[in-house]
C-alpha cells in the first residue's frame, strides 16, 4: 500500500510524521520524498545516497534554416512557449511542458529534440535498526520552474523499484494543493493529512481536503502541535470540522519542547533521548497500526 503524507500548509509536520512513521512501520517499506522543490526527509533520516541521476525533459529546438516561418506551431502551444516574433517563431525552452505538439504539427520537420535538465533522482538506503529501508528522493534543478515532469520520472522509478520488490510506500508530499501536491497524491492508496491547528493551518487544511477528496483517495488526519497556548479554540474547531466531514483523526501529537529539540538536532522525535523518545515511539506505533487498518479498510470499501 502507498500512504501519501500531505498537509496543505507548509511546515505543518509532514516530514516529521513521515520520519516517525518510518521507524514504527510493521512490514517492508520504501520511503519517498516527493517534495522535490525542497526535499528534507533525508535531513531527518540520514540515508546513504548514491550519486544523483539527472532527469531531462525533451524540448524542441528550431532549425532556423529549415523553418519556413509558416507559424503552424504557434497556436499548437498551450503554454506560450512559442512566439511569432519577426519572420520565424522563437522557442522559449524554459516554458515548454514537453507535450510534443509542435513536433507533430511542423510540416517542415524543422524541430530537433533538445533537452532541459529538470533535476535529479537520488536513491539510497536508510538504516533503521537491523533494517535497511530503500529511499528515493527527487531534487529540482535550481532555476527550474516545473516539478510535475520530475515527479512523473520519480513515479516511473518508484514503479520499477516496486515491480522488482513490492513493499509499502510512505511518501512525503510537497506542500500546497497545486500541481506538485496533486501529482504526488495521484498514486496514493490513502492520504494522511497533517493538520496544524492554527487559523492559517486550518484554512489550508480545508483547501487540501477539498483538493485531495476530488482524487477519490481516502483521507485521514493527524493533528500536530496540539496543546499550544492560544490554539485551543482552533483545535476544537478542527476536531468538530473533521467529525462533520467524516474524517478520522488517527492521532494528536503534542506540542512539546523536547520534540522540537530533537528535530533541531536532525532527529525525528521518536529518536529523542529517554522518555520523550519512548513516548513518541509508542505514539507512532499506534498511528502506524491505525493508518494501516484505515488504508486497508478504505481499499476494500
Amino acid at each position, binding site marked *: 500500500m502507498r500512504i501519501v503524507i500531505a498537509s496543505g500548509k507548509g511546515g505543518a509536520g509532514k516530514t516529521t510524521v513521515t520520519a516517525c512513521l518510518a521507524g514504527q512501520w510493521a512490514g517492508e517499506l520504501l520511503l519517498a520524498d516527493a517534495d522535490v522543490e525542497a526535499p528534507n526527509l533525508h535531513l531527518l533520516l540520514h540515508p546513504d545516497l548514491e550519486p544523483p541521476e539527472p532527469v531531462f525533459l525533451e524540448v524542441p529546438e528550431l532549425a532556423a534554416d529549415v523553418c519556413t516561418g509558416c507559424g503552424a506551431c504557434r497556436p499548437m502551444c498551450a503554454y506560450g512557449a512559442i*512566439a511569432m*516574433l*519577426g519572420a520565424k517563431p522563437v522557442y522559449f525552452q524554459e516554458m515548454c511542458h514537453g507535450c510534443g505538439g509542435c513536433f507533430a504539427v511542423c510540416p517542415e520537420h524543422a524541430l530537433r529534440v533538445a533537452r532541459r535538465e529538470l533535476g535529479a533522482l537520488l536513491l539510497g538506503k536508510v538504516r533503521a535498526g537491523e533494517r535497511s529501508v530503500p529511499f528515493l528522493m527527487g531534487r529540482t534543478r535550481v532555476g527550474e520552474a516545473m516539478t510535475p515532469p520530475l515527479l512523473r520520472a520519480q513515479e516511473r522509478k518508484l514503479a520499477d523499484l516496486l515491480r522488482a520488490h513490492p513493499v509499502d510506500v510512505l511518501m512525503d508530499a510537497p506542500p500546497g494543493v497545486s500541481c506538485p501536491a496533486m501529482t504526488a497524491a495521484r498514486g496514493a492508496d490513502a492520504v494522511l493529512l497533517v493538520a496544524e491547528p492554527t487559523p492559517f493551518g486550518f484554512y489550508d487544511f480545508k483547501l487540501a481536503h477539498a483538493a485531495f477528496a476530488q482524487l477519490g483517495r481516502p483521507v485521514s488526519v493527524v493533528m500536530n502541535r496540539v496543546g499550544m497556548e492560544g490554539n485551543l479554540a482552533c483545535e476544537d474547531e478542527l476536531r468538530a470540522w473533521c467529525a462533520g466531514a467524516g474524517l478520522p483523526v488517527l492521532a494528536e501529537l503534542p506540542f512539546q519542547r523536547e520534540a522540537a529539540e530533537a528535530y533541531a538536532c536532525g532527529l525525528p522525535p521518536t529518536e529523542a533521548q529517554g522518555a520523550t523518545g519512548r513516548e513518541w515511539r509508542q505514539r507512532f506505533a499506534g498511528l502506524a497500526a491505525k493508518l494501516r487498518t484505515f488504508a486497508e479498510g478504505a481499499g476494500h470499501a
Partner: protein
Amino acid sequence: MKVAVSSEGPGLDSQVDPRFGRAGGFVIVDMETMQADYVDNGASQAAAQGAGIQTAEKLAGLGVQAVMSGYVGPKAFMALKAAGLDVYQDMENRSVGDAVRCLADGSVSPASAPNK
C-alpha cells in the same frame, strides 16, 4: 516610427506603467505625427505565465519599432530583441508624453540587457 509606451491609462497624460508584460495597456505613439492610440493589455494580467512574451508578440504584430517601460523581464527582453525592437527601460514615474519627449530629444538610449 511607432513607439509603444506601457501605460496606466489611455493618453499622453497617463503615467507610464512600470510593468511591461502585465502593464494595463500601451499608448502607441507615431513619432512623426505624435498621434496616440491605446491598446488594452488587460488579458495578459490574468496569464499564469508568459505574459511578457505574449505582450512582446502583440506589440511586434502592431508594427511597433520601440518599447518604453519600467522593468522588462529576461524572457520579454529576449522576445522584443528577437522581433527587432529597441527597448527603453526605467521610464516609470513620468507621463507617457514625457517619456516620448525623452525619446524624441535623444536623452535616453536603448537597453542592451533586461533590468529585471
